[in-house]
Every structure is written in C-alpha cells, then in structure tokens.
C-alpha cells in the first residue's frame, strides 16, 4: 500500500468541484443504476415477468372459465384485460422494497449527502420498473393470444389498453413508494400485499362480472380502483369503452399520483431528520 502513496496523494490533490447535476441527469443516473441491477437479477425477474403471468392465466382460464362463463374461450375474452391489471398490481410492491433496501443498507444516507434533486432516486427507479411491468404485460397478452384471446378493437385497442394498465401501475407504485419510505421492516411492505392488495383484487371485477352479485356489493366493487382500471382496459381492448369508463379510471390514477407522489417526496426528505 505504501508504494501507492504518491499516486494516492496525486488523486487526492485534484480538487475539482463539479456543478450540481440537473434533475434530468440525476433521473437518468438512477435509471442507469436500476437497469444495471435488473440485469444482474434477470433470473428472478423472469419468474415475475414470464412464469407468473402464464401460470395465473392458465389457472384462471381453465379452472374457472367453464364455471363462470360457460366456456374457457368466452371467459378468456372477459378475463385477459383484467389479468393485465392483476399482474402489474402485484408487481408494484417492488418499488417499496427497493426504496426500503436503500434506506436499510445506508446507501440512502450517501444519496442524501449528495447535491442532486432527491426525488430522482425514486423516479429513476420507477421508470425502470415500468419496463418490467411492460414485459409482464407483453407476456400475458402474447400467451393470451396463444390460448385464443382476440382483442375486438384490434392492435390499436390492445396497445391503448396496455398503455392504460402501465399508467395504472405507475399510479399504484406511488402508494408502495410511500409505504417503502415509512415502513419499519421490509416484511411489513410485503405483508401489505396480502392485507391490502389481495382483498382489493378479489373484490374487483377482474375475475367475474358484477351483475350476479348482491346489490350492496355492486357499488363497493364498482369504485374499487382495480375494477376501474380493468373496466377501462376491457373496454379499450374490445372497443366498448365509454368516455365515462376512461375518465373515472384516469381520474382515479391522477388522484393516487397527486396524493402519494408529493407525500412520498416529503416523507423521503424528512426520513433521516426525525
């Protein structure tokens, strides 16, 4: 080591003070970081992006298809748009986990002492998560087509539905980003999946039509954000979407983002300052 002394001294004597990075370059730096990590975790990613969507689509189509819609083909036409929503909903929890991991491992503290626009850490990571949502959705659609699903509004409908579901996932991600900042333990974030997401998913119209349900249940299901998203996705996919369907779905998403994004940034900034 002592042989390195002159080299060390030279490196340490260089004293350039670069200007603080602009917000865009900070966001891009975090997308770069997140991509690097994603690449090293591809095998795990494959489970979420390839295997889960296929398995769930198979289970729901063939187990419930006959019972619910009389035939698996009919059911698939109904189910697939909702399955898109279902697939990404379970993935939104990851943003919370990655924020919590940064906080626990102390990288967060290093970030906080650097002079960049702090929300970039969350936004940059989230942008890469959107790519994995898109990959999981593509798998679901491709496999659905293989099983016989046909979007009645054609390619345009399918693409619009895809876009809507990604926007939906983006909006829900903010809830978990927020939870990730405040959670005491990583496990409590994952358990939120069971406490909040699963009940919401099964009280939605993803799997069944609401017309056979008792009157009191209808409104609850109708205003469940998961239902709003899957109604809109279904409508876009088959060309039956009403303006009201789309407006309610988009309004719900906007509400999530407007409430949870600023809240997350605020809590994130305050995190170490208790």
């Amino acid at each position, binding site marked *: 080591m002592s042989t*390195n002394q002159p080299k060390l001294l*030279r*490196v340490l004597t260089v004293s350039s003070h670069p200007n603080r990075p602009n917000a865009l370059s900070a966001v891009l730096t975090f997308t770069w970081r997140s991509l690097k990590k994603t690449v090293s975790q591809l095998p795990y990613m494959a489970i979420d992006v390839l295997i889960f969507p296929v398995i769930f689509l198979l289970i729901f189509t063939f187990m419930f298809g006959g019972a619910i819609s009389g035939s698996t083909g009919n059911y698939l036409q109904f189910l697939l748009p909702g399955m898109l929503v279902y697939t990404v909903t379970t993935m939104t929890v990851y943003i919370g986990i990655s924020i919590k991991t940064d906080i626990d491992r102390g990288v967060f503290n*290093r970030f906080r002492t*650097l002079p*960049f626009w702090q929300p970039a850490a969350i936004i940059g990571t989230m942008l890469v998560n959107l790519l994995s949502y898109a990959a999981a959705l593509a798998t679901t659609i491709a496999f659905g087509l293989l099983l016989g699903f046909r979007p009645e509004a054609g390619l345009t409908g399918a693409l619009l539905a895809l876009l809507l579901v990604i926007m939906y996932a983006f909006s829900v991600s903010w809830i978990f980003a927020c939870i990730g900042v405040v959670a005491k333990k990583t496990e409590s974030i994952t358990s939120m999946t069971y406490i909040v997401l699963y009940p919401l998913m099964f009280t939605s119209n993803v799997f069944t039509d609401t017309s056979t349900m008792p009157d009191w249940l209808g409104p609850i299901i109708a205003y469940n954000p998961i239902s709003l998203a899957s109604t809109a996705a279904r409508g876009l996919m088959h060309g039956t979407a009403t303006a009201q369907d789309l407006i309610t779905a988009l309004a719900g998403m906007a509400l999530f983002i407007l409430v949870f994004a600023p809240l997350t940034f605020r809590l994130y900034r305050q995190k170490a300052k208790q």
Partner: protein
Amino acid sequence: MTKNNFAVETRGLRKSFGSVEVLKGIDLQVERGTVYAILGPNGAGKTTLVNILSTLIRPDSGTAQVFGLDVVHDADKVRGMVGLTGQFAAVDEELSGRDNLVLFGRLTGYGRKAAYARADELLDAFDLTDAAYRHAGKYSGGMRRRLDIAAAMLVMPDLLFLDEPTTGLDPRSRNGVWDIVRTLVDRGTTVLLTTQYLEEADQLADRLAVIDGGTVIAEGTAAELKASVGSGTVHIRLTKPEQRALAEQVLQRELDAAAVRLHAEPASLSAQVSDPELAARLLTELSREGIETVQFSLGQPSLDEVFLALTGRPAEEEKEENVS
C-alpha cells in the same frame, strides 16, 4: 462565512429520540487539519453526533458549526464540504466497485466521461483496479473499506467522517487504511474518527473525546488522557499461569486492590501504580514469593485502562444502539 480555526465546533448539542435522550449537551472543538477521535461504546451517541454534523438530522437544541457554517441553516454548504463513510453512508452492494464510483460521481455532478475517468483514477489509487467489475457486496473487508473511502473522495471533502475504518481488518489492510488517512491529513483534510476501539484512536488521532451516555466525559490528547489516569501501569507476564492468583494477592497487598486487573491471556495481569518506585518494590516482592516473570514492564496506561478508569467499566461492554 465566519472564519475560525475550527473544523467542527459544537455547543450544548442535545438530541432525543422519543423519550430517550441520546445527546445531553455536547461541547466539542476540532481544529482544522487534524485527526480527532470520538471514542465511546455502542449507544454512547457517536452516530447521532455525526448525523447532526453531516446535516442528516437536526439537533433539538444547541449549535453545531462545520468550518464556521451552521449545520441547520447552511446545510447545503456543509454538505458540500463533508464526506461520509462506513455505516454513515454505505456503498451499493449490488453494483460493482466501478459502477458505485460512477453512480456517486454522476450524482455529485460529474459528466459521464469525467465520472468514469474519476472512478478509474480512484480505483487505481486505492488498489481496487483488479476488483473494479466485481460486486461491492463480494469485496473483502479491506477492499470494502477502501471503496468506502474512495467514494467519499470523488470530490475532496474538507472534513471526512470515518467510522471504525480498521475494525475487523487484517494488519496489512489496517496499515493500508492508516496510510490513506495520514495522506489525507497531509493534504489538509480534517478527519473525524468515531470508534469504540481504543487502539484505532491511539494510532491515528491527534486529540480525542471520550463520550459515554451522551456527554463528553474526557477530552485531550491520548497522552493527556493517559496521564490523567495515573503515572503508569505495570504489565506482568508470568512464566507459570497457575501462579497468577498468588501474584494477584501480592499486588493487592502492595497496592490498592482496585488497581489490579487480570487479562484475558491467562499468564498476564497489570496494575496501576502512582509511583515508579512502587513498581521496583513489586518486582522484589514477587520474586520473594517465588513467582517467576517473563515480562515486567512499566508503561503508560493503555486507552483501555483510561476508559475503565473514566467510566468504571471496560470499553468493550456492549450496549445495543437502537437509534437511527
């Protein structure tokens, strides 16, 4: 910006987490260009103190200045001057060493090319070129520590916080880190070292403060602290470990019973003596009892002994630090 000679100056710094008062009024002055050690067991308040000085948390009351800048009101400027390492600010374990330096470099404001150039330059100077593409999580203790320090050197800090920089390192890596710290100080950086290991403070620090239970219980140079405890300590190693109980009796007879300490090594014991002549008498008494010694030396007390004398318990005693 008010100019003064201190890199760090705090007055009456207090901080509580809930009902737990972690800092109970800390007064500290660290001169520029020196290595200053903050010594204390886990839970003494070291981490909280550093978090306040590096603007990560705010004090409840009292003031803290870094190079004359208030850590609350001039937080942004202070942040530009300090570097954090270790548990205060970790590296990303899932990225390679090089990617870590590029990441932090970009976030500091280096352009793409400049960030890579700076990263490679630092990897080279810190002997990490061979491990540049390996995940930081797979680094050895010494490599990890060097990467940590390198990450704090992307822009030269005027004040560097080092947290137990050599704990758990083998002697060679330890010397490497010590060399780095000395080079930094030569270059003019002020280093604030926090540690619970006395040897580390003894080796590196110009001055040190011992904190315990949220207050500074002693402050000065290592020599001053040692002198405050007593003029010296005799270290005795016996030929036959089984004679230790007898030797202990002899020492206790001649000295204050509380001054005698048995060491973990079964043939060793030590005692504080107020007067060198007493030491000579001890040697005579031991040989009269037929106790053979391999080593009998009179030296300054170690910082370990200082800590024991100051707090009434050994420095190694662990208390869980559960504040963040």
